[in-house]
């Protein structure tokens, strides 16, 4: 109960901007798409297969994408993207928001590993993370189509009203924006709060332990930041007057490490492992 109250207070107290027309998707900025991705690639679909899973409970579509260019992440010649849904025979399973790939068509894709099968990838933000590329017939210029009509603006400009009905942009301009987003360090604003669970501890001398945990809810501390669930966090716990004081020092989001300053307390008694805290960043 106390934890739930803390969650409530934490989230009400946060200055984070979030879409509140709650539907299927959180609208992610280019910065957030980049942060949540382990890989950002340009590629094209070379094979696609929809099939029932071995338990015959779900239809899954696997799309093999040939990677033409790596913008973020380690190089790979192909990636396999997993999406729920597909058509097998006269049965169609459809999850609104999923991407329908077209053959011989290039995309810029924001990818993260599937939690259930890390050798496969998910598209970050579902359809938001797949930018289809086409070549303008008149100018011969390569352009990208903004998924779902979202505008090619960073979060800082997303308040601008619609100025065009054709949500496309030159690929070169988009690439520049992506490059900037990928290279921009993740910044966690002061006052950000997120729940973490301690996974393990290591002794560091008398009354001191190193603590390692993970973030247990996806948090959007600002329009240009996201902390996906599962991100790791580290700190040091010190026992003083029968109270553990944990000083959180580092957060790791998709391999990008961010220094943070936050403190949690826990009365001595039971093990720190498994304990859940709401971390408030100073």
């Amino acid at each position, binding site marked *: 109960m106390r*934890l*739930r109250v803390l*969650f*409530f207070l934490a*989230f*009400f107290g*946060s200055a984070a*901007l*979030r*879409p*509140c*027309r*709650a539907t*299927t998707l*959180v*609208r*992610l900025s280019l910065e*957030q798409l980049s942060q949540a991705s382990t890989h950002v690639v340009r590629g094209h679909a070379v094979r696609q297969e929809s099939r029932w899973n071995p338990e015959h*409970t*779900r239809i899954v579509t696997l799309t093999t994408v040939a990677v033409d260019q790596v913008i973020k992440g380690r190089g790979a010649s192909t990636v396999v993207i997993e999406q*729920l*849904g597909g058509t097998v025979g*006269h*049965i*169609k*399973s*459809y*999850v*609104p928001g999923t991407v329908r790939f077209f053959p011989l068509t290039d995309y810029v894709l924001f990818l*993260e590993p*599937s*939690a*259930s*099968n890390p050798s496969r990838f*998910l598209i970050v933000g*579902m*359809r938001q993370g797949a930018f*289809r590329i*086409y070549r*303008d*017939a008149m100018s011969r210029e390569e*352009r990208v*189509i*903004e*998924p*779902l*009509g979202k505008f090619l603006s960073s979060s800082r400009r997303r*308040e601008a*009203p*619609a100025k*065009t*009905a*054709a*949500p*496309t942009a030159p690929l070169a301009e988009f690439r520049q924006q992506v490059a900037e987003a990928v290279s921009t360090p993740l910044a966690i604003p002061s006052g950000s709060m997120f729940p973490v669970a301690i996974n393990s501890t290591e002794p560091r001398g008398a009354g001191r332990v190193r603590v390692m945990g993970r973030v247990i*809810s*996806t948090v959007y501390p600002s329009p240009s930041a*996201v902390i996906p*669930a599962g991100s790791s966090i580290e700190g040091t716990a010190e026992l003083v007057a029968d109270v553990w004081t944990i000083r959180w020092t580092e957060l790791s989001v998709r391999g990008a490490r961010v220094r943070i300053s936050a403190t949690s307390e826990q009365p001595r008694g039971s093990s720190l492992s498994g304990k*859940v805290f709401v971390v408030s960043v100073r």
Partner: protein
Amino acid sequence: MRRSRSLRVRGSLLFAATIASAAFCALLLFAYNPEQDNVNGPVPARWQGSATTWSLNPSTGTNVHTNGGDTISAAVTKGFDTWQQTLLNGQRINNLTVTPGPTTILTDPNSADCVNILSFVPSSAVSFPTGTIAFTDVVSAFGSPPTNYQCSTLPGLQTCSLPSCLIDADIIFNPVEQFYTTATTPPTAFDVQAVATHEIGHMLGLDHSGIAHSMMYPFGDTTAAIQERTLAVDDVAGIAFLYPSTSFSTLTGVISGQVTLGGLGIFGSHVIAIDSASGAAVIDGMTDLQGNYKLIGLPPGNYNVLALPLAPDINSGIFILDDFAGWSCGYAGPSENSPPCCDPATNISCTGTPLSNPTNYTGTFF
């Protein structure tokens, strides 16, 4: 408003004609975007008999907060009632029946059991891309009727007597997002009833809408603490289109016509009926291969029809429905920062910033 009035939208539309494959055609014929299958042409998928049942798994994790708010069951039930009981000008125009079944212990989507579940506690076998609040796995059986299909929980073969039948739909909430049932929701969390109502729209056969203030819009940019739980006209018309009552055709109208450029029909144009008084986008749709469109289920009133380009060029890169949903004007509320869909030059009640492109759509269409 006269019904079934054909329009021919003329004028110097800015965009070029597109040539599309028949495969794309299946995606583009209807307003409010029903989920569709292709059976000798696009057909919307529906529940047979305009009826279905649902079962809630009442288990929740620590990410679901009900203190001071509804129970999960109450919030979800309100979501179903919203669709079933919705009225247009005080009249019910759909004949949908959704019935709560017994609670379930099922946690994961199962496309083969013909049991429609809502679960807040999916197993680790279910993956959610970052940014996903919830999803609905909607399963249909399609083909020239009758089509037989199997349900793992039922003996023998089942029969679909429609070109496309919805046979299973499971709604799964992301266990790493925060959900509340209170009337106001913290800015980093989501309202169970609002999310459920959107997902139930999928369960009943609706895809995402391009109108920003509709329930079926895929997402928004507001920071309002109160999340929308009610339907827009686009949603009301959409569900009535799928499950019409006898009064649907008498209480609503149709605007149909053709979008042309240089005498040729324009495929894939986004067409929106805009309330001429308020400037609010009411119902949208897209043109077919011949440039024809039909906006079905409009309440009585006067409308402007706006045609927008979806095609960036003549020969390649045409937009399809997957690329679409860029409609961001016409939101009447204070929290969605979008202009009304109107032209101040011709409408003195238009107070917002008009669309700048295309600006030269011509005429007022009724």
